[in-house]
């Protein structure tokens, strides 16, 4: 049996705000953990590459980014103390209800069992299907930010940003601070966005710093003289083999801008690959337009001893993700006998208060940046499934021909059967099916997912390090 084979007490997946906080909280109660992350360094999305980014000038990436330093410092102390076994460059390709974790690192696969698991795998950008979004040169705004943080690389100009949401504004500002001009920011927010969000303003005022941040970002863009185009009704990316132009429609008229880079963004949604592969119960959140696993107040799912913390359980932002990670870790510590239930509750009380405070801003943000139907249910000629190259028209036609739901669509069109396993099309497909059938997306459901959730070769599986007694139970569909 390899060392990987011994059963762990606690395994954590994801070294972002939620996973790091969970690991640090567990360690503070003497509970050791193994912390897996696909990335080569800790930080998750918001604090990506914090220890190594070449952009050391603090004002460039901003105070919210550098705030992560404290958490990463605590991680390093936990490692030093022998309590946190941090495993970067470890991709999780399987997790089942027996809590067997299949990991892949530099081509080596291993299987480990844990008695408690905290999944903190975060969010992804919401798919933003527009004609031409598959052209090289078109990327997510978050993707451009990854490149900026981890490598200090700014993409080709002229550069256009399009969409809505705080991350779009932040990325534009970070580019400008780095001295890279932004040719235009095409705002796709609906005209009535403010009116729709207004009812939540009073609650949001309980978290005034978030409101101020948004206002400051817009001022910053204006100060740099960015051409902010409001009321954009449609978008398209064009070019021969790569992006050359961005078309946009405003007041019924199409216009064009030359561009080598187009950054699209319309918010983030939970990464549900693992909760779906576990067949956890999910519910549709109409306010956030996404699926979330159903969780108890500690973040535990209906898969016993498996918790979800952070944006992976519903979009909450970095600060709330940290609190959720700590709450899950407290429950784990109590369950493993490291603290009493009374002690757990005592520590949890102020954390829950802080979490409630953090979440006050959400209903306002969710309403303000809610993408219109037109951006979620694209025109017929728009590719929806990037992998199998299926467009919205084909999906609508299949549904009219009797295809009843997302899983049947796989059989009809191979939609969702490519390597991304529906990550880029699942939400759009559910919306299109609901639209065509005239029923709410919540009833349509989602793709059934199976392990492996990340590519693994037969050769890697053949050399899998498996603890002997469990070898017979390994399942790979």
């Amino acid at each position, binding site marked *: 049996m390899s060392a990987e084979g011994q059963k762990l007490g606690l395994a954590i997946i994801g070294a972002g705000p939620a996973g790091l906080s969970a690991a640090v909280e567990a360690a503070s109660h003497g509970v050791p953990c193994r912390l897996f992350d*696909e*990335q*080569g*360094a800790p930080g998750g*999305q918001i604090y990506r*590459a914090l220890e*190594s980014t*070449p*952009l*050391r*000038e603090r004002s*460039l990436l901003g105070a919210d980014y550098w705030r992560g330093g404290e958490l990463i410092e605590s991680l390093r102390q936990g490692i030093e103390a022998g309590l946190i076994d941090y495993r970067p*460059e470890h*991709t999780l390709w399987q997790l089942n209800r027996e809590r067997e974790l299949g990991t892949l690192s530099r*081509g080596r696969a291993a299987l480990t069992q844990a008695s408690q698991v905290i999944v903190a795998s975060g969010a*992804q*950008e919401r798919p933003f299907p527009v004609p031409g*979004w*598959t*052209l*090289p*040169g*078109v*990327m*997510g705004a*978050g*993707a*451009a930010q*990854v*490149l*900026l943080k*981890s*490598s*200090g*690389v*700014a*993409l*080709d100009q002229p550069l256009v940003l399009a969409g809505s949401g705080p991350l779009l504004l932040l990325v534009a500002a970070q580019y400008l601070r*780095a001295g*890279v001009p932004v040719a235009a920011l095409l705002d796709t927010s609906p005209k009535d966005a403010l009116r729709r969000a207004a009812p939540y303003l009073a609650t949001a005022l309980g978290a005034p710093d978030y409101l101020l941040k948004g206002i400051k970002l817009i001022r910053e863009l204006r100060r740099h003289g960015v051409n902010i185009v409001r009321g954009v009704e449609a978008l398209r990316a064009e070019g021969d*083999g*790569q992006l050359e132009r961005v078309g946009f429609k405003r007041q019924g008229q199409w216009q064009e801008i030359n561009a080598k880079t187009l950054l699209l963004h319309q918010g983030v949604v939970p*990464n549900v690959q693992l909760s779906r592969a576990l067949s956890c119960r999910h519910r549709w959140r109409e306010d956030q337009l996404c699926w979330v696993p159903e969780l108890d107040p500690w973040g535990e799912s209906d898969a016993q001893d498996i918790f979800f913390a952070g944006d992976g359980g519903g979009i909450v932002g970095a600060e709330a993700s940290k609190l959720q990670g700590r709450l899950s870790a407290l429950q784990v510590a109590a369950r493993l006998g490291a603290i009493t239930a009374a002690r757990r509750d005592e520590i949890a009380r102020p954390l829950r208060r802080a979490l409630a405070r953090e979440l006050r801003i959400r209903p306002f943000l969710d309403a303000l940046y809610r993408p219109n139907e037109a951006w979620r249910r694209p025109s017929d000629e728009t590719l929806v499934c*990037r*992998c*199998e*190259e299926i467009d919205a028209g084909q999906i609508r036609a299949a549904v009219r021909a009797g295809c009843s739901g997302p899983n049947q669509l796989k059989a009809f069109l191979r939609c969702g059967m*490519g*390597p*991304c396993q529906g*990550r*880029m099309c699942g939400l759009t497909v559910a919306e299109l099916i609901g639209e065509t059938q005239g029923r709410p997306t919540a009833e349509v459901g989602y793709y059934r997912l199976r392990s*492996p959730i*990340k*590519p*693994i*070769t*037969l050769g890697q*599986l053949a050399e899998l390090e498996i603890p002997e007694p469990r070898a017979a139970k390994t399942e*790979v569909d």
Partner: protein
Amino acid sequence: MPTRLSSPDSRPTLTLHFEQREISARQGDSVASALLAAGIKSFRTTPVSAAPRGPYCMMGVCFDCLLVVDGVPNQQGCQVQVRDGMRIERQLGAAEITP
């Protein structure tokens, strides 16, 4: 061309072999970052229509950054860290993804 922003970068420089070219990268770059920084936008062609694709998400979600790295196909360029001397090729059309 994309630009490496000018603040002093203390990370060691490495060399990658991309098809017939040599590309310099920095330790801590993903393969996708290094190729994008070198001005390479198209990483693969699709099995269905042979359309060119490049990285879209940079975080392991879209699989449009698939490359052949040191002879192994289907590597997510955005998730693989650069190592000195790595050999990288575009992935053209289909390759066996999972067993």
